[in-house]
């Protein structure tokens, strides 16, 4: 697949209208006001029911803007062209506070394959409510120019375009791939830097990478989950790809469990750092294809504590840092000989234990071939079950693995 973006579609044709300064100004003012209100309403549509009263003032503004333009120009057309919004053919200059909202609207429209919204008559409020309905987290599966065929608009029309959908998809796929690549490369470089005696973990950069991963998971969960299919031959890069895959699986799992954005971020961060302790283990041990000698076994068994050490030496004691350290240790408790009762394990550690085991089992290692998804699942639910929270394993297998299997390339 080519990584280059397709050429951007040309701006929509401009109808012949009296192009006075006043017209342009009015279009900009009304267009911006309408667009801003629409953005706000559509953003809130993720959180509130489309019938909620919270939308009333916003929809009043949208309706008023559409009426203003209809009365002066006889039409209302909002088009998405490239990265810009055009109202009645004129690109709208966005104010700083509207830019992020407009970007979100652009993404939402592209995800639904909508290239524009138009009306040639005064739209009733019900149409605007139905427009909101399309932007719920679970939108209707099919759209036509009158919106949801089950509840069509009376006046408003959608401009549907595969180009809008596909260009958005290309853009998002590129972003997804870049975020994943950054995560995996980040871990590899961090391990390398630790080997060379780096003073501290680059936590802030990791935080930004995981923010991107969490956002992308929400906007395209299936493609996001498919990232966990990436495998590399070179053992040198294994730890980075493994950590990124664990992050993908863990963020997906956390999202399905309904954890908050903060907690999904915590889990993603813990996943990225869960094997940094490998930096303290000689490469000869990590790349060995046969059985490990006693010294090698001891080193591998020490790795969870070494990961915790690498995280804890930074001296941070806030919740997220402690969670990272504990998850790195607790997700591998099977490696650490326990003398007393088994330590109680936090949720991040329990999630990581499952996700990291699934990724490790489905990856070829110098000392064994990769297991199939089915075999990996069987091993996790039988001989390795003692390692996991049984309830969580069931949910993981029943939900995440099932979705993961749905991303399998068609034969």
């Amino acid at each position: 697949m080519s990584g280059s973006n397709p050429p951007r579609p040309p701006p929509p044709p401009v109808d012949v209208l009296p192009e006075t300064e006043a017209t342009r100004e009015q279009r900009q003012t009304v267009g911006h006001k309408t667009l801003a209100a629409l953005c706000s309403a559509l953003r809130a549509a993720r959180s509130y029911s489309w019938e909620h009263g919270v939308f009333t003032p916003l929809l009043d503004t949208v309706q008023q803007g559409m009426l203003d333009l209809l009365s002066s120009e006889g039409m209302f057309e909002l088009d998405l062209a490239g990265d810009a919004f055009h109202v009645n053919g004129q690109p709208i200059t966005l104010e700083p506070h509207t830019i992020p909202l407009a970007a979100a609207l652009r993404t939402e429209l592209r995800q639904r394959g909508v290239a524009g919204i138009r009306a040639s008559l005064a739209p009733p409020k019900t149409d605007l409510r139905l427009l909101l309905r399309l932007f719920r987290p679970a939108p209707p599966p099919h759209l036509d120019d009158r919106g949801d065929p089950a509840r069509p608009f009376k006046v408003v029309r959608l401009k549907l375009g595969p180009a809008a959908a596909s260009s958005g998809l290309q853009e998002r796929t590129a972003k997804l791939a870049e975020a994943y690549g950054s995560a995996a490369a980040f871990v590899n470089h961090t391990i390398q830097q630790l080997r060379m005696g780096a003073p501290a973990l680059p936590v802030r950069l990791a935080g930004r990478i995981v923010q991107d991963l969490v956002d992308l998971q929400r906007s395209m969960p299936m493609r996001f989950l498919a990232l966990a299919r990436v495998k590399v031959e070179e053992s040198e890069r294994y730890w980075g790809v493994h950590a990124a895959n664990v992050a993908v699986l863990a963020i997906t799992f956390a999202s399905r469990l309904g954890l908050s954005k903060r907690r999904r971020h915590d889990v993603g961060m813990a996943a990225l750092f869960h094997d940094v302790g490998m930096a303290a283990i000689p490469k000869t041990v990590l790349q060995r294809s046969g059985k490990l000698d006693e010294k090698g076994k001891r080193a591998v068994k020490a790795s969870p504590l070494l990961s915790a050490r690498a995280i804890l030496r930074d001296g941070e004691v806030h919740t997220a840092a402690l969670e990272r350290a504990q998850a790195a240790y607790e997700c591998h408790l099977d490696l650490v000989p326990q003398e007393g009762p088994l330590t109680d394990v936090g949720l991040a550690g329990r999630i990581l234990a499952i996700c990291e085991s699934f990724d490790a089992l489905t990856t070829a290692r110098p000392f064994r071939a990769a297991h199939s998804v089915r075999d990996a699942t069987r091993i996790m639910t039988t001989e390795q079950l003692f390692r996991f929270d049984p309830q969580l394993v069931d949910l993981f297998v029943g939900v995440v693995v099932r979705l993961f299997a749905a991303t399998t390339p068609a034969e």
Partner: protein
Amino acid sequence: MADADAALVHGALAGLGRALARAASDSHAADRHASVLEPALGPLREVADKFGTVTVTIEPGALRFEGERVYADEQGAAGFCSRLYRDGVRSLTFRRGVLLPELQAFAAAIVPGGLESEGDAVGELWKADLGSIQCTAVREDLLTDHSASASFSSEVQQLASKARDAVEFVDADASLLDRTQPPPLWSEEQHKKHDPQSWGDLARRTALTIARIVEEDLAGWDLEALQQTFGHIVAEMAIRAEVQALVTALEGVAAMRGAHAPAFRAFVARHLAEPQRLSRAVVLATAPVKTARQLLEIWTGLLPDDAGPALLAAMDDARDDLAPVLAGAAAQRRGSCAAEFAQLLRDAAVPTVLAAVEALPEDGRDDAATSIVERLTASASAKLPDEDLAALYAALGKMASSPGRAFLAARLAQPAKGLFKKRRSEHEQLLAIEALASDGSLSALRILSEAAEGKRGHGEAVSAAARAAVERLRGRRQVREGKPR
């Protein structure tokens, strides 16, 4: 904007700035932020309702609205405006419908140093996921700061290409799922049950993990850094009154084995001996939890040998029932506070003295007995209640020290004279007999035997008590030596 409107917005934003500055000045009091922020909420809601959105620009040390400075942070570079600016936040937009919990979450996100915050305002605001408060931030290119960025970028591109290949295979049916958000698998109750997110519990487990790293000899060159982290955790636990977690963490240190355990314990001991921390431990020991008293015992047990003065100083503010614990710990470190410890034995409440005496090592008994003798011979001793007097005599007996025996012998031999003193004198003679019996040494036996002979002119009760004590002591000695009684 009309002058009146502008004044309204300026007033609201200035009030918000002041409230945020107050919240930021006390990062540990997130629960108190509500009362600080509430007065600023009304005006902010009013302007947001009136104008739809209000966007304020962030500058180092100030907030600006439509080009005009509406709030200047008195703390300058240390204030929240500068912090937001440093972290990359350039503007904040408040929308209609801001509620207090949202404003609290916003304050928590921008307050540096809170335990729920990682210290990066942009990241924290992103995590807070606020609906009515949004920020714009400069997109830092942190990747370019990443060392070896050229090779890093190249690796990113190679891995991104593999990722594109993996994603490309997601077929149309599967991609439809991209547009749906199925309901979460867990309910609110299940979240609370499975993910309680208690910092105390997390910190307790982390403290034990650090102890494990050190014990397994895996700390390497990070030993000092791990000690510091452990110290931070313990300090934070104390601030947050996580008594149970503290007890577990300190027990872990006390039980730690391995080559580096003594060095680690020595660090923790120094940390715990800081007067402010010790005072905090004394306060925590009064917490209404089962393990509160245990905390003070384990805390003081870990202190270094020179912590005697700090322990005795901590007694000034300690509740009466905790003073004995501190006195006992000071007794074990009396080498570092000989004069103050002697003073304690002369002046402190009797239960405290008894605890100190109980904890004394053998080589400290003579000095301690001297102090107690001084107390008993001082004129103020006449006012001691009978039970205190009895306890002090018993303590002297238990210590089996030469100065103690000499005093007891003297008291037994020379009863106080005078009509009114006779009764008390006989009482003290009986106490001395009991104490000497408790001493149990040959010297004590000799003193008791002489008193029992009746040649000293003691009253009948004293002689009888002495005889009984001699009998008891001889019996005990015979048993010890294996002779039939």
